């Protein structure tokens, strides 16, 4: 998802504060009246925002920060007619994407994006001070009550992680049937989710024959059937294996899936040995992980 799509997606998915503040807790939060429409409809002109100055912001938060001098200079360099210039130190609100290709990005509804360090720090080496919005009052009414719930992680991060470890599982003998090495049953979730399935571990090849084994060893598949040895192939090769020798190498592969809302699906890691006669292959010290990411 590109940066200019994320804001729109966030609005459509129904943004809420990660941890809604109500009642007595509101008293310890900093209150600011907002101007402008750059993050509407999440916050509109005249809203009161309750900002938690004691909690660091996380991915997906609306964050408040003090505008840096260089951020103000950039903003004022192409100021629309009639708009007042920005000043360093002004409090700004943006949507935080904590890790976008390694950078913390601040977004608005116009598709503008800048790094958090640029907008809130005077030097790229500084650490941005970003504080989360914990509630919003509009026309005298709090928008979020105690029953409001948002996922513990933002939209660009995994919301739920499943993993299975495998100490040892046979991939099989050359020419023989394939085997299921691991499986994970995932869901249901309230939202449709993207799933990132990753397998990593070691593949061991034991040459029990009297001839040198060729480099092509076999294939790992990640799919939705324990007997599917064709979909999503990831071929692996551990090099030539001399007679009566065990070779071992690390292996990892990844496949992507989507899961409809309120459904459950089992995903399998299947292995097929395509080495020469006498080659016995085993998957060891492995982990099968599925990260479910809210769409």
């Amino acid at each position, binding site marked *: 998802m590109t940066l200019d799509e994320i804001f729109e997606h966030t609005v459509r998915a129904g943004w809420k504060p990660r941890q809604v503040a109500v009642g007595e807790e509101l008293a310890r939060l900093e209150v600011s009246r907002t101007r402008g429409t750059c993050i509407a409809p999440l916050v509109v002109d005249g809203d009161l925002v309750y900002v938690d100055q004691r909690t660091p912001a996380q991915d997906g938060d609306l964050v408040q920060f003090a505008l840096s001098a260089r951020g103000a200079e950039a903003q004022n360099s192409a100021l629309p007619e009639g708009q007042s210039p920005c000043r360093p130190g002004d409090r700004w609100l943006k949507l935080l994407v904590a890790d976008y290709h390694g950078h913390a990005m601040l977004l608005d509804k116009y598709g503008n994006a800048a790094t958090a360090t640029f907008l809130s720090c005077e030097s790229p080496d500084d650490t941005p001070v970003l504080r989360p919005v914990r509630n919003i009052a509009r026309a005298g009414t709090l928008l979020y009550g105690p029953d409001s719930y948002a*996922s*513990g*992680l933002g939209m660009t991060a*995994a*919301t*739920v*992680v*499943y*993993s*299975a*470890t*495998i*100490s*040892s599982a046979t991939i099989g003998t050359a020419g023989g049937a394939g085997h299921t090495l*691991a*499986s*994970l*049953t995932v869901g249901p979730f309230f939202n449709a989710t993207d799933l990132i399935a990753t397998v990593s571990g070691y593949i061991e090849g*034991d040459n029990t024959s009297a001839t040198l084994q060729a480099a092509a060893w076999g294939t790992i598949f990640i799919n939705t059937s324990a007997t599917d040895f064709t979909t999503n192939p990831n071929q692996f090769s551990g090099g030539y294996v*001399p007679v*009566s*020798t*065990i*070779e*071992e190498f690390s292996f990892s592969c990844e496949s992507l899936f989507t899961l409809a809302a309120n459904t*459950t699906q089992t995903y399998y890691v299947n292995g097929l040995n395509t080495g020469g006669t006498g080659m016995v292959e085993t998957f060891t010290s492995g982990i099968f992980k599925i990260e479910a990411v809210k769409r």
Partner: protein
Amino acid sequence: VSRSVHFYDAVTGVFTGRSFTVSEDAGGMHAAAVKANTPAGLAAFEGDCDPATQRVDTASGQLVPYQPPPPTPEQVAKARRRRSMPTMAQIHALEVSQARVLREAVLGDNAALQRLRTIDEAIIKLRSEL
């Protein structure tokens, strides 16, 4: 933060070496996720355990000491081959290195013959360690 379970044989209580983990974000789904991911014939144990020295007493659900069975002859042989992997790698490297010395020896370089003998002696020594 996540929660993990280790799977054991529901009859013998011996751990299988497999485990399942789900992040706390699953919230109330945790129990259902464990149930859905427990393979047939196995049961889930939540908590720290050492599968090499402990098993589950299936009557009480508590950990008890466990002595694994001795390795089979096949496992012993395989372990020996695994231990020989570094030695085999050294032999392979020496054999690869002899190609140039062979060429030099064939072309009449007398010093290359001595280098060949040195390589051969090193390989013989390594073979004795297998």
